[in-house]
């Protein structure tokens, strides 16, 4: 008798759940909204100048825990668009079959070239369909909704005062040769800019208080008079500020291009 009452009570719970609206999403016809950071599949980006953003530095190939990325480095050549000498990747293959979607390759990319997509690959009929070649990766930028994460955004989230920490490994770290192609021209341009108008980098940099306090305080009119007045000190803060400009100026623009591409 006791079991009978228990069963009735259990049936009551079942009935209550029976009357609730279903939570199942009938997948192929209805696709559940995916959050911004959702990560499946990959894309390579074309940067704001219209050139390939990937400089073939092998950072992602080295950090991949399951070694699914294979890059063929190209010799450094002049960019067709900007005319600056920089590195390129001749071939870029990413094997999704063994990928564990850890997002480490995205985080280490020095030029924000590789990002993840929010739309998965369409199932194919052979294993080769899951191997993303360079053409597929570049096509993904246009065809698929891109995920939120880029190297710049991820690093900024983890370390808001990043300009300070970034300056050290870039100078003496192992990635010197890798980043040299992309960093130096930008840094030079940034330095020239910074020399002309000192307060500008202070605005764009996330935390200028420590690295360059003087330009931040000074009004635009005074900036011309400032460098000769304190001749010994400014080079150091300007150098740091210039380094901050390089990634900071690149970031918002790439973000814009990615948002444009999303249909």
């Amino acid at each position: 008798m006791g079991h009978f009452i228990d069963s009735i009570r259990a049936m009551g719970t079942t009935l209550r759940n029976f009357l609730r609206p279903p939570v199942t999403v009938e997948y192929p016809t209805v696709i559940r909204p995916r959050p911004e950071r959702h990560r499946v599949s990959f894309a390579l980006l074309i940067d704001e100048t219209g050139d390939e953003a990937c400089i073939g530095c092998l950072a992602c190939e080295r950090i991949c825990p399951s070694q699914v990325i294979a890059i063929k480095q190209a010799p450094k050549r002049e960019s067709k668009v900007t005319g600056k000498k920089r590195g390129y990747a001749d071939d870029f293959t990413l094997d999704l079959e063994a990928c564990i979607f850890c997002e480490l390759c995205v985080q280490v990319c020095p030029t924000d070239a590789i990002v993840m997509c929010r739309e998965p690959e369409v199932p194919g009929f052979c294993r080769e369909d899951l191997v993303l070649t360079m053409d597929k990766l570049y096509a993904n930028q246009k065809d698929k909704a891109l995920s939120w994460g880029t190297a710049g955004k991820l690093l900024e989230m983890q370390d808001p005062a990043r300009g300070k920490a970034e300056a050290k490994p870039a100078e003496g770290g192992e990635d010197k040769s890798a980043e040299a192609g992309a960093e130096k021209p930008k840094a030079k341009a940034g330095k020239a800019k910074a020399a002309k108008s000192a307060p500008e980098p202070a605005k764009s940099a996330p935390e200028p208080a420590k690295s360059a306090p003087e330009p931040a305080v000074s009004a635009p009119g005074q900036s011309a008079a400032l460098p000769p007045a304190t001749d010994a000190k400014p080079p150091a803060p300007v150098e740091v500020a210039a380094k901050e400009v390089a990634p900071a100026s690149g970031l918002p623009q790439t973000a814009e291009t990615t948002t444009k591409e999303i249909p």
Partner: protein
Amino acid sequence: MSVVKAKRQNPHFRLDLYEPEADLMVLNFGPQHPSTHGVFRMQLHLDGEKIVKAVPDLGYLHRGVEKLCERLTYVQITPIVDKNDYVSPMHNEQAINMAFEKLLGIEVPRRARYLRTIFAELQRMASHLLWLGTFALDLGGAIGGGASVFLHCFRERELILDLFEEVTGARFHYNTHTIGGNRHDITPGWAQSVKSALAVIESRIPEYESITLSNGIFFERTKGIGVLDGELALELGITGPILRASGVDHDLRRDAPYHAYDEIEVKVASAEGGDCWARSVVRLAELRESLRIVRALVDAVPEGPICGYKPIKLVGQVKIPSGQVYSAMESSRGELGTYVIAGGGEGNVSPYRLKIRPPSFHALSALPYLLPGHMVADAVVILGSLDPIMGEVDR
């Protein structure tokens, strides 16, 4: 004490009654059996329907993770250990990073510690929900079709996975922890969605109990089945809900606080009896307790950085020349420990040896003591109540 020692030396003490051994029927339970929670094999020696000897056989899911970690660098290990305990990957990530942080002597920022605590407790809830569902499946049709409990639990577990997905972008293998903190910060509206998900789960817990704990059939299937003595459990190295169900009040969250557990009081659930019933009671009480902790912490997350160390930028970025450390945390299944000896790889970028102490492995060592004397149908219930995850047992 001497009694326990005798038990340890010969778990198959009932076998003395049966001579010669060849009279017994040998039943291979698993490795393809759906009730073995993965690929786990037991040799059951039966006298009729009664088990007189049980020999667990492990290793069907061995992937060599520890050896693999010796070849990977410190920054690459986090996404790999996600796959150990695939029901609570957050705990694995946290355990391994806690060990590295201890080696390097890094202080984790307060915000990251809060986030880790919230993630750990949410993951514990998800894990216990999955346990309850699969345990109901193990009991089978006895409780009005175990599949309904299973589906109800999975429905609520999905809410938690959605929360994780919003923060980390992945539903399961998150890779959201890094050395020194977290990789992903929470999104602006996340606390609100946590609270609404918790409200749903809290309202559903009485429903689970109406089908399981307050059901007479569930009671009869679990009460007095698989009684584990507290002293024996301690000697076998069993921790977590199984130990607490045996009357030993031990919880690393309270006894050796890590993350932000020193800032919040953890009411440790324990029960007497040590049988499957007590283990169920403890796990459902932990579900409520985790709910309370998350609710208390999610509004109190302090501002500040989420990572106290350089973000990952290079493969060989973290170099630890020497040292060894053991660090432990309370996962959903018990004490998840990591023992690291530093100084391997070229340029000290990899661990020389990395040993993971999984709680499920120790839980399975109780099987030869628990099973003899029970029916074959109870073997499934006892194994289910231990909540083993074979990915973590074999690594």
